[in-house]
């Protein structure tokens, strides 16, 4: 199925969770995620299933140094 992540189409398996999408994009849990404009808690990344056409926004925090 296809979902969008930061406005780009992503092909993922049926039944994929948010964490699966993140991993397939080379990301970890250390990001902020919105699905269809709804912000998720970090613990929901493991449980929230994605559906065809979901709009996912991901922000990765960049710190200092």
């Amino acid at each position, binding site marked *: 199925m296809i979902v969008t992540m930061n406005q780009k189409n992503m092909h993922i398996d049926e039944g994929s969770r948010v964490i699966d999408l993140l991993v397939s994009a080379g990301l970890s849990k250390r990001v*902020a995620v919105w699905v269809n404009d709804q912000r998720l808690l970090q613990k929901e990344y493991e449980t929230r299933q994605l559906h065809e056409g979901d709009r996912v926004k991901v922000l990765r925090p960049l710190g200092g140094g």
Partner: protein
Amino acid sequence: MSVFPDAKILDVDLSKGAIDTKTLSGEIYRLYPGGSSLGLYLALQEMGAGIDPLSPENMLIFSVSVLTGLPISGQSRLTITTKSPLTGTIGDSQSGGFFPAQLKINGYDAIIFRGKSEKPVYLYIDGEKVALKDASSVWGKVTGEAEKIIKEELEDEQLEIAQIGPAGENMVKYASIMNMSNRANGRNGTGAVMGSKLLKAVVVKKGKARKAVDQEGFKTLTGNVKERITENEGVEALGQFGTDGELNSHNRDGFLPTRNFSSGYFGDSAKKITGTTMAKTILKGRDTCFSCAIRCKRVVEVEGKVDPFYGGPEYETCAAFGSFCQTENLEDIAVANQYCNMYGLDTISCGATIAFVMECMEKGILTKEDADGMDITFGNGSIYPELIKKIALREGIGNMMAEGSYRMAEKLGPEALPLSVSVKKQELPAHMPQYKPAMGLIYAVNNFGADHQSCEHDPFLTMPADAKEQVWLGMLGINLQYDDQKTLDDGKVRFAIAGQKFYSMMDSLCLCQFSWGPSWQLYGPAELVDACKYGIGWETSVQELMDIGERRINMMRWFNVRDGFSAKDDVLPERLFDPMPNGPSEGHQMKKADFEKARASYYGFMGWDNDGKPTEATLRKLSLNWLLDK
């Protein structure tokens, strides 16, 4: 008697060649428990307004803290406090390494240097044995050579040395103080003050680590450090790829300072200078500071060009000599890093001043003739060794550049002034206020010029409420969530202030801000309270720690107010209010009106008047009433 330990302070009068030892009672030390809090407390007792930073009247203070030298990550930091020749404000700079821990292990919390020596000297410390020694054999030598000679002369390899290079001797306004020849007290030109006093180095004999007073308790923090690192993705990546690991991510978002901050996008070139590329190419190994398990320091080697003895470039260095100057050759950047470490220069101000000159050349404000025939153009990193040496030795165009971009622009005229990307005459580090506006606010109001390690960075407020970063920020009273890091409003001002107080406290306790901090770091606020208890028997709280940070900020502010600094100096370069011109951030604009509103809120929340001066009530609240007579 206080339950808090007393501070032991060496007082070195270089004019008289006299060395004295003083004790500061634990009662007072608890209010100013090290770092620049202690440095400021000592400086403000004696230094009045109007002192020339390069005159014998300026005090140069080395300090560590009550926690320095304990066997835990991120406690070995040295603070230098002095009046800065670059900014004219209070000067403040930190470095890591092994020197800080060893100074404390030798029994000292601070060293005051006053006056000016008749001839070059260095201070030697071996416990109670403290002496000024002739430094004529090392004056004029680059750091690596000087280190070798001192060790040979003293017939001792077991030494830690903090020293200036030729840039400090020549009073370059952004000269650093180096230890291990690769750790820098880089910012604010503290090395120039050391040079003005003809003090080449401070040499300490190595001793054994301190022990925690409650070793069992302390082990709850240190025993599982490997697991802590593995579980913390940000910290683990820092160890793997160094601070430069995120350079390309900043670029991907369109906020990597490029071409003297005229853009935030370095295109595909960013990949060539980012930490992952460094790890695959010139990285030879990782290094660390005393007792730190993170090991974030880089050691790089390029045969015949870059000697691993001088370490390797940080993110700030890769940006300053890379994207600021549009240079995509990592080897050129590594060479520049080595030359800055050899000659003792702050890599940020040095790279930024070169980028400024490149833009002046491009705009015809400077000609090739002015530049001694050198081709100082964007993209030409091959000039770094020659140009850095000229700056350090104040030769040709280097003499003008040694004053920093702002003073140079003043000389070149009104067209050049907007091209100096600086606050209070100090060049900006490589984090763009357009992307991190709370940090941009702190750049402006910070008491010693723009600094990226004086508050937490905005993006962590985008994290979900149950993420570790947010849980720790909640301990500082910051329970906020943003959908975008680029917002600047009252919530962000509260975040900026809470972060500033916490970071200010860390610069008082001399803690590394990657090991300790209020969001992504290895240890958070609660662990710090535990470390104080188990480490030295200090029963403290987040509240007491935040007060320490706030006290330091207000002491700094008071120091500056006496010299005429006010709201007019708490500004950002105009260039930063222009819309972003290209790349992923194209069109984004930080509005000046939003910034000015935030600054007004900041003054109000801090208990300062509209001109940025602390009110009497604010000083009294912080037990700083004594400042009213200073």
